[in-house]
């Protein structure tokens, strides 16, 4: 018999659609804990440094909540807010010079790198250049070296007693090639150590450009250089512009290079901020500089997003067209020599540091006077504690990052929490030195007096690296199909238990790879370490820095090499883990 489904008006039972389900309460609590973490350790510090930049005096936000007295004093300070510091900058006084210098530096670095890298990117993407593999491997050196070590390497090469200048003088030159302790020196280090940031996006941009358009142009009778200028280059333009903006931000927030190479009379915004806080405890000045740094970084970050979003896939066509690779003999020779020279510079700088680490003394001649392993012995005896500190701090940041990042990606990917996605990516635009200053200011006094503790250091590291960690956990989270989780639930597991027994183990390779990278960047980290680390928790990077300041160059070199070796090993492991996704 046929039953016809009744089609009467449905009986409406308009329950509140947004009724939260009781079982997910444990998760909801977790989510708010994570929000609280970012609120306390990121948003409040940034907000309070903004206030300080107007009041000119330190403000205790957490104190204002617990103590009536602090609250009224905070109110009083807030009533005295003024635009004076900003007005001075606009009028060209105060920190105006530092801002201009920094902008000048970052702009020239971004432009020069782009010009320098353009032929190399073209060679990688569109020619049969030999030694591509070797060059690519050498290109990882700049990314492995922390910039303050690279700068020191440049000093060893181009300083007054540097070996390059020894060779220069032996060839009849006089004095030095150029003064490495200058804007030029800083720019050169940044150029040669940041160029991979631009190289790979540009290679991708050249590869993407539609070859059929180029062929069409050549068909129409255009010469190949004309085709390159009028067709290939414009098509690759969005990629190039985006990497330029990225370079600008990286150069602008770099602390390691200027702190080693900036002479006393050169004002750069990061150095100035550091000097104000570390030298004079000038809250007002450092706050203003922090806010400016943030605004500039945020602006360029936003611009980059804009460029990428608009054009990225503009010319990708569905079918992968086979690209004809340029194999013109003369062009290849020129490109190979040129690329080889560029990638050789970072290698030479790192090699100089290594040579210095095994030199008895170095500086009288182009080569060291003798060789010894004594400096390594020294660092393992006297600086042993720094190595241990680094390991503990990095491990702490690793654990904290894993926990926070895993849950953040769970909420973002599975529960569509765009709020957490936004909050957790804020650190992308906060230069390390800015985050450090904001944290010192906020946690300087009771009730949350954390400045000078290892805990705050670990939290700062964690927050700084959070966006990168989340990117890696989010990737592996998205690779896990939703129905796997649902299968676990249908088999009787609560959502939390399903996460623990199914999602967790499946995410493990991704988490592990991301965690190692956090560990690596913490060991490399300069700005946060120099600003926040108390003496008894000084990590390796701070030890290198202090040794350099004290003139103990050889031990500094040995420690720097140790850092580089640890970074290389861990990065290789992370790479292997990320590749070996078992499933």
């Amino acid at each position, binding site marked *: 018999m046929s039953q016809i489904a009744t089609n009467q008006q449905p009986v409406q039972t308009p329950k509140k659609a947004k009724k939260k389900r009781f079982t997910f309460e444990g998760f909801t609590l977790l989510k708010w804990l994570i929000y609280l973490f970012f609120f306390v350790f990121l948003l409040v510090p940034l907000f309070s440094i903004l206030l300080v930049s107007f009041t000119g005096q330190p403000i205790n936000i957490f104190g204002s909540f617990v103590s009536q007295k602090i609250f009224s004093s905070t109110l009083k300070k807030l009533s005295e807010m003024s635009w004076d510091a900003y007005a001075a900058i606009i009028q060209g006084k105060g920190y105006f010079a530092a801002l201009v210098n920094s902008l000048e530096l970052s702009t020239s670095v971004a432009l020069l790198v782009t010009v320098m890298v353009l032929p190399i990117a073209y060679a990688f993407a569109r020619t049969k250049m030999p030694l591509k593999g070797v060059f690519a491997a050498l290109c990882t050196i700049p990314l492995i070296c922390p910039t303050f070590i690279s700068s020191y390497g440049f000093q060893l090469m181009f300083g007054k007693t540097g070996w390059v200048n020894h060779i220069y003088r032996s060839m009849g030159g006089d004095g030095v090639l150029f003064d490495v302790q200058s804007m030029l020196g800083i720019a050169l280090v940044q150029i040669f150590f940041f160029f991979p940031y631009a190289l790979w996006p540009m290679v991708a941009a050249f590869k993407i450009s539609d070859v059929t358009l180029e062929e069409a142009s050549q068909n129409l009778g255009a010469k190949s250089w004309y085709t390159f200028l009028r067709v290939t280059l414009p098509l690759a333009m969005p990629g190039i512009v985006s990497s330029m903006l990225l370079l600008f931000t990286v150069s602008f927030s770099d602390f390691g290079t200027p702190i080693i190479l900036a002479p006393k009379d050169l004002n750069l915004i990061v150095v100035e901020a550091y000097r104000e806080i570390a030298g004079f405890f000038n809250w007002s000045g450092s706050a203003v500089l922090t806010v400016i740094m943030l605004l500039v970084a945020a602006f360029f970050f936003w611009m980059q997003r804009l460029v990428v979003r608009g054009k990225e896939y503009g010319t990708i066509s569905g079918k992968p067209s086979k690209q004809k690779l340029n194999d013109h003999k003369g062009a290849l020779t020129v490109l190979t020599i040129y690329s080889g020279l560029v990638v050789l510079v970072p290698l030479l700088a790192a090699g100089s540091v290594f040579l210095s680490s095994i030199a008895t003394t170095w500086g009288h001649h182009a080569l060291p006077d003798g060789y010894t392993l004594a400096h390594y012995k020294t660092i393992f005896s006297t600086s042993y504690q720094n190595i241990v500190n680094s390991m503990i701090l990095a491990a702490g940041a690793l654990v904290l990052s894993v926990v926070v990042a895993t849950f953040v990606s769970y909420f973002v990917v599975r529960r569509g929490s765009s709020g957490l996605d936004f909050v957790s990516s804020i650190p992308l635009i906060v230069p390390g030195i800015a985050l450090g200053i904001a944290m010192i200011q906020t946690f300087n006094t009771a009730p949350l007096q954390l400045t000078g503790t290892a805990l705050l250091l670990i939290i700062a590291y964690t927050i700084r690296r959070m966006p990168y960690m989340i990117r890696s956990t989010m990737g592996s989270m998205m690779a896990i199909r939703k129905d796997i989780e649902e299968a676990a639930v*249908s088999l*009787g597991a609560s959502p939390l238990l399903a996460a623990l027994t199914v999602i967790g183990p499946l995410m493990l390779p991704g988490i592990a790879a991301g965690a190692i990278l956090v560990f690596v960047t913490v060991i490399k980290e300069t700005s946060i370490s120099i600003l926040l680390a108390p003496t008894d928790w000084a990590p390796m990077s701070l030890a290198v820095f202090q040794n350099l300041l004290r003139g103990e160059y050889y031990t500094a070199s040995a420690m720097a090499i140790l850092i580089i070796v640890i970074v290389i090993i861990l990065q290789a492991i992370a790479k292997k883990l990320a590749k070996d996704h078992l499933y």
Partner: protein
Amino acid sequence: MGSVKIEHLGKVFNGVTALEDVNLEIKEGEFFALLGPSGCGKTTTMRCIAGFETPTSGKIYIGDRDVSQIPANQRNCGMVFQSYALFPHLTVFENVAYSLNMRRFYQGGFGTKMAVLANLLNRRLGKVNREIEQKVRDALDFVELGQMADRLPTELSGGQQQRVALARALIMEPAVLLMDEPLSNLDKKLRNVMRVTIRQIQQKVGITTIFVTHDQEEAMSMADRVAVMNKGKLVQVDTPTALYSNPVSQFVADFVGSSNIFTGTVKDSNDGQTIIAINEQQVLRSAYPTGKKDVEVIIRPESIRLYTEDQPTTNDNILAGTVTMSTYLGPAVRYDVKVGDLQFEVDTTFEGGNPLLAPGVKVKLEIDPSRVVIL
């Protein structure tokens, strides 16, 4: 315990109505298919039963229990996913044992809980429970995968993965078994085998089973009853044969097999039969009464017998037409026949040797009145 009742089920996704007033009663032990085109709400209905979606309105009962507010992990619904959703990091054995371990986790004390967790995270840490081991072995033998216990799901063929998914769902002795397009990931040959296998297993276990499919052949060949859905509503719930021979709407007729569908005018309806004029010249007799004047007429292509002009017919319910095209399909021949200004599809069995009728040949279409459905 195993019956399912759905009352006035409704679901709205961001202002879009996915389900509207769905009412269903599925008997204990029944093999029930939800059939419809994609986006018709069949999967949403199943996910509401499983507890993965919260209905906007309505109630769902499993047995006598109102499960509408009960979370998915406490509903005791076994589910076989379209992609099987086997846990890729666990062996076949561990996949099948998962629900038993979960049960142990919730029922056991702290020590048991830790042991279960340890066992799930690393099989060397925890001891496998004897009772569970035996049950899993039996379940794997039942689906003929006893040899595969220690393999990872990725090392199995599609059909084997399917059987693991089935064993994993059945071992928890669920009140209802839910299957979401269980055969869509298999190739055609394996699909036919698994159709029989699933049906046999279901009969042996005697479990109430609901399965979602967009393939009418699958639904018709496996299910005791089929619910046809369209645009979030139930259109017809019936046995496969009734669904085929007495579709309640043009949509059902069209979705369940191919049909000749056209409009006609009722000339006379009495004595339990109806005379319909289908175009100016010709009339057709149907064995069903109707009260309407203008009707839809549905005739299955294989319910028509085709005769050439000189052949005798067995009844007088005949339309005259001309062949316009003949298509040879192997066991059958399909003729397109023009009757007045209407186009008919007629399926005849291929009897060997006979050449096909050429276009232009005049034919008679003889139709059994009991197979002329009017709406």
